């Protein structure tokens, strides 16, 4: 399920910006944040999947094994398969990671309703583990002084 957007710059539009670089550098710390959270890993113990998380122009491929981030690889990688994708602009992710996000930026599905975040592919693993993914993707809030979701 290679995607044209990966080559053309993703949902951030155009080449990677400073915001993309900042957000991507933040997101790259996700494995350490997630795997250190024993309760998050425990809650994801029945989950093993591959997903694409797009931070503006920068795609990341997450391999999740029994709730742990086994690998988080920065792309793009041609023809790399994934089960589902979550795509949002760097600005939207940075708003979501604020310690106290503004209304509408505070939840993945709030962003989706506003058209700032797109969910694609087979959403069953996401929906079956929705709180896990909400908490996982909110983990970078801790880097900004927040407490996660």
């Amino acid at each position: 399920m290679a995607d044209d957007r990966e080559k053309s710059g993703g949902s951030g539009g155009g080449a990677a910006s400073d915001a993309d670089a900042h957000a991507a550098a933040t997101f790259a710390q996700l494995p350490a944040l997630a795997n250190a959270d024993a309760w998050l890993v425990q809650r994801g113990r029945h989950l093993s999947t591959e997903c694409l998380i797009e931070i503006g122009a920068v795609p990341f491929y997450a391999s999740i094994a029994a709730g742990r981030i086994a690998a988080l690889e920065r792309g793009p990688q041609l023809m790399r398969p994934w089960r589902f994708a979550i795509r949002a602009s760097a600005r939207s992710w940075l708003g979501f990671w604020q310690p106290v996000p503004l209304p509408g930026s505070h939840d993945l599905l709030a962003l989706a309703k506003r058209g700032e975040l797109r969910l694609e592919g087979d959403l069953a693993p996401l929906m079956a583990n929705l709180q896990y993914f909400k908490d996982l993707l909110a983990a970078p809030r801790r880097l900004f002084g927040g407490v996660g979701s």
Partner: protein
Amino acid sequence: MTVELEPIQGRYARMEIGGRRQRLYFEESGAGIPLVCLHTAGADGRQWRHLMCDPEITRHFRVLAFDMPWHGKSTPPEGWEGAEYRLTTVGYAEIVRAFCRTLELERPVVMGCSIGGRLVLHLAIEHAAEFRALVGLEAADFQAPWYDTDWLDRPDIHGSRLCAALVSGLIAPQSPAVFRHETLWHYMQGGPGVFKGDLHFYRVDGDLRGRIGRIDTKRCPLFLLTGEYDYSCEPADTLRTAAQIPGVEVAIMKEVGHFPMSENPARFRGYILPVLEKIRALPPSSVQA
């Protein structure tokens, strides 16, 4: 050892609702003006416990909250196992009116949240004379869907976990963790397909667009309060609805989400006490049937 007893009392009441015998669980506290509280979709009357334990409220109001059929400790009607549960506008209004009738509540105030808030608008349109005042929390004539409700009731996905995970984002980040998780616990305890069935009313059957102009607040005062972090019923949805209702009082609650009474009771108190004060002070001319 001293037992710390709350003033809330719970009872079961049997009544005819929509031509069927039903057994409803309800809780109440206080004395005075009857204040019937309607819980959100997929939850139950426990959401209102903080109001029932607030002496500032219960010394003037008899606060009552029932669990809708299929919810909480109420029993689903006989034969429930043979059909998909789907709440309708008429069916929901009949539950509220039957409850008020059966308990012989004289022109109660009804306060509902979310689907309860939508129903409050329906009551204001169709049955205003029966009520002293109406309060809609997180209420609007319509709001855009934000997920596919088919996910809520599938054998391959844990429904109670999904229901809670979906609504978790409707709680404001500032709400205390203890009340956030208590609110989510209620969602984890709903029966299979019940949240989805409630949302049939919300999404399909209860669209009030085009009918709001019939609300007459001189006949029955109406108050609308919505949390700024509610992205299911957004403040803009409530404000759009309120703009069609002369005389309505509307407030957008800061640092509150979709469950004001249960996610942040202290903050909600600051918004609801003045509303209840105004209801107490209604002149006889505006409370006549």
